[in-house]
């Protein structure tokens, strides 16, 4: 059987491409400074005049919207005002999103919207014994970090939050600083900057040290891959690389131990984000690097359309600048890349020759809207879409848009980064948090 049944097939072309390093050029422009991530536990004061908006999938009424009318919609295509007011400039942690529910951090309470405990709910309050510093969605439930101790609060079957102590062999009493999760496993960054995995067997929780070679600052997880940013600004990745999402230049079945992404090693990375099957990183110079699967245009590169017209001989030479595909027409096909595949695609994956890209195996700079040069401050990836905030505070979104997650007022899937303008051109975007089929944004409105 030289071919697999079609739906078991390693999909299409694998492309390998070197990064266009423009570091030198950027340095000539005179080192633009980018703020390092402010950690949520460092700030405390309430921001007045800053609003949270959200859009995307709302099939369980999970979006905490102010408008009760919008709350009833299954798909929210324009960003809508949320009831939530975070106490600092980073959204992730003050709220957490699963596919069917949303958790909000409210001092001594966790507020739950959407599907919870076998039914849909709105503003369900879950009391905590202490102040909650951050929340995290995991497998339809919630994990919380209390601000006092460095422990982890986990929701038990009796709907009580129970404290789980992180006891890593050889590291007594490691406090938890931040966490994220793949579909199956929770990963924790401890106060001493080690990366630890948390697995649950029947009764106990097993903490296992994954990485301590370099101090870890940020963790981000996709569906089946994990990326960490070290204090030194290096990026490591591990997990599944079946769509090139690990960024090591090849399709990989599974990488067990964190491996540095060499293509980024010469750069100072300030922010990272993992999508479902793609990854993104922002450099200190404001360059956005992106790689992985481009099945819905989430890399911002021309995607392969599933429409047959692509293969008809083209008699007109008119080049379309962007390809907009209502997703209803797009036929999705699963594509499972194969074990340890080392398929070095020779075709160049770039926008220059306008050839469609299915996978990028290595980080590649994404020019948001060439020839204009746009510097990026922050990036966040949802399941199959991506959002980035520029240094001017503009928001661009692209990728899968069927559930309104791009916030452009329609359900289109876009493979071109497109500025979100519905809140007006004067607003300044402070932060963006994408998860699953949703986008949350923190916005400063003009006075």
């Amino acid at each position: 059987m030289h071919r697999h049944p079609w739906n078991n097939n390693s999909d299409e072309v694998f492309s390998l491409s070197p990064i266009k390093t423009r570091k030198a050029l950027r340095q000539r422009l005179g080192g633009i400074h980018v703020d390092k991530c402010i950690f949520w536990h460092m700030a405390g004061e309430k921001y007045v005049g800053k609003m949270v908006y959200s859009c995307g999938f709302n099939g369980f009424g999970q979006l905490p919207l102010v408008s009760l009318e919008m709350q009833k919609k299954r798909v929210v295509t324009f960003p809508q005002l949320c009831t939530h007011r975070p106490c600092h400039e980073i959204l992730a942690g003050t709220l957490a999103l699963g596919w069917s529910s949303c958790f909000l951090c409210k001092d001594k309470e966790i507020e739950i919207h959407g599907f919870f405990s076998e039914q849909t709910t709105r503003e369900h309050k879950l009391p905590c014994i202490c102040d909650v510093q951050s929340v995290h969605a995991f497998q339809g439930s919630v994990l919380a970090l209390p601000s006092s101790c460095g422990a982890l609060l986990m929701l038990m079957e009796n709907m009580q939050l129970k404290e789980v102590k992180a006891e890593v062999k050889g590291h007594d009493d490691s406090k938890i600083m931040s966490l994220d999760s793949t579909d199956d496993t929770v990963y924790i960054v401890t106060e001493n900057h080690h990366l630890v995995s948390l697995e649950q067997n029947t009764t106990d929780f097993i903490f296992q040290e994954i990485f301590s070679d370099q101090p870890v600052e940020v963790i981000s997880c996709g569906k089946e891959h994990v990326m960490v940013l070290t204090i030194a600004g290096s990026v490591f990745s591990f997990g599944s690389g079946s769509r090139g999402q690990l960024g090591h230049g090849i399709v990989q079945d599974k990488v067990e131990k964190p491996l540095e992404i060499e293509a980024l090693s010469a750069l100072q990375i300030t922010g990272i984000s993992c999508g479902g099957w793609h990854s993104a990183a922002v450099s200190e110079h404001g360059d956005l690097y992106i790689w992985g699967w481009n099945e819905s245009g989430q890399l911002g590169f021309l995607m392969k359309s599933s429409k047959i017209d692509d293969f008809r001989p083209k008699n007109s030479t008119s080049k379309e600048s962007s390809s907009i595909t209502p997703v209803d027409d797009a036929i999705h096909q699963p594509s499972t890349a194969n074990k340890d595949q080392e398929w070095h695609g020779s075709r160049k994956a770039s926008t220059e020759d306008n050839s469609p890209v299915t996978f990028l195996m290595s980080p590649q700079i994404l020019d948001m809207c060439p020839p204009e040069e746009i510097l990026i401050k922050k990036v966040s990836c949802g399941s199959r879409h991506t959002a980035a905030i520029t240094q001017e505070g503009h928001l661009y979104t692209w990728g899968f848009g069927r559930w309104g997650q791009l916030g452009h007022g329609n359900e289109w899937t876009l493979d071109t980064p497109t500025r979100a303008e519905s809140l007006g051109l004067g607003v300044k975007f402070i932060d963006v948090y994408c998860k699953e089929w949703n986008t949350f944004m923190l916005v400063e409105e003009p006075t």
Partner: protein
Amino acid sequence: MFQQVLKDLMPKKASVMNEVSLMRGKISPDVNFLINSCVEDYFNEKHQLSLSKAEELLDFCWEKLNKGHWKNVDIVWRKAYSICSLIKALSIFSEAPSSGQLGSESLVLKKALEVCDMGILMGAPILDGILPQLALQLQLLITAGKPEGSKNEEVQVSNCATEKEETYMVTKRAKTRHVIYPKISPRHVIPKVNCPSLHHFQMYHMEVARPVILTGVIDKWPAMTSRKWSLAYLNTVAGDRTIPVEIGTKYTEDDWSQKLMPLREFISSFVEPTESTEETECPVGYLAQHQLFNQIPELLDDITIPDYCYIKICSYPSDEGKYGKEGEGTEVVDDDDDEVDINAWFGPAGTISPLHHDPKHNCLAQVVGEKYIRLYSQDQSSKLYPHQGFLLHNTSQVDVENPSAARFPEFSSACYQECILQPGELLYIPPKCWHYVRSLTTSFSVSFWWN
């Protein structure tokens, strides 16, 4: 417009609910909740709502199906995909305009049919194979609803085709693509045997791994006689069915990709390009190694599994046996040892399967057109330069008809056999025997794999 058959096919709420309840505990509670409310909405005739929910669920299942290896995904997600496809198709169908506007009605039917096919291709069988049955009825409705003119035309063409060779698809041959006919040297010719006994076939071919062309075996198939597989016939029977198409010359090339499209579009765009598209560069499209007969069981009536495919040789435990056991309970159905695995291979002249070998016995039935085939026995492997690594180790790096002597010096000294397989002939390819296949005309072959 509603036919009684279709009405009888409509699933009962209880049976759908039962199928859903079997998944409880294996799928997350939120998905379970939404599937239940989706089914509930459909049977309460809230079709818009059940449609939206089914689409949301399909997207969610799609993400599940794409996590990790396809074969490791719990089959429950494929079942869920099929159930949601069913509800989506039924919701679309129920929203169809009751009568009058024929055009829009046929669009709705086509949409519903496409949804069924996606459920068949990506999902797993549910409710006694309801999706293929529903798809059959939808295709019949679409074909029946065609404007009178075009319907008659098609019927006529297909009638003609059964009588006259000229209108048969083979005539497209040299016109569409520049095809080189290789000269078959007598030294390399594959022997032909007319309808040998099972015993003869087993003794002199299967057990000694000796390829042979069998004549007089498949030439009475309806596909070759009463229901001849002309393009018009295929369009009538399955024109609106969604099929996977490989695009690009060879699967080893970079530009190779796969697309889903209705059979009719595949035929018009790739198999039978019109005058205007002929000259311009159009990639080769190939409906290759697709289990078409599982998807469209009615096409099975046009062929017969050759008796030879039921011969079992009790041999020492093979590598495949061991390999198959690794996956334990999650193995996909087609690895069933007793099943004959039937695949369709349909495309224009110029489709190429690079030199490779498969683990099973293979009978390749040539129904329409001609194919050039080159065989190398397993003992020649050292001269064939297989690709390195897990994925393509069964495929040679050599371009058989244009080998690079510099890169593959040993290749020219490898012994081989060759043939131009004619309609009505059945080629036996032993397990692990290397084969290279290039279509010389528009071609439709059916392969039978068995252990």
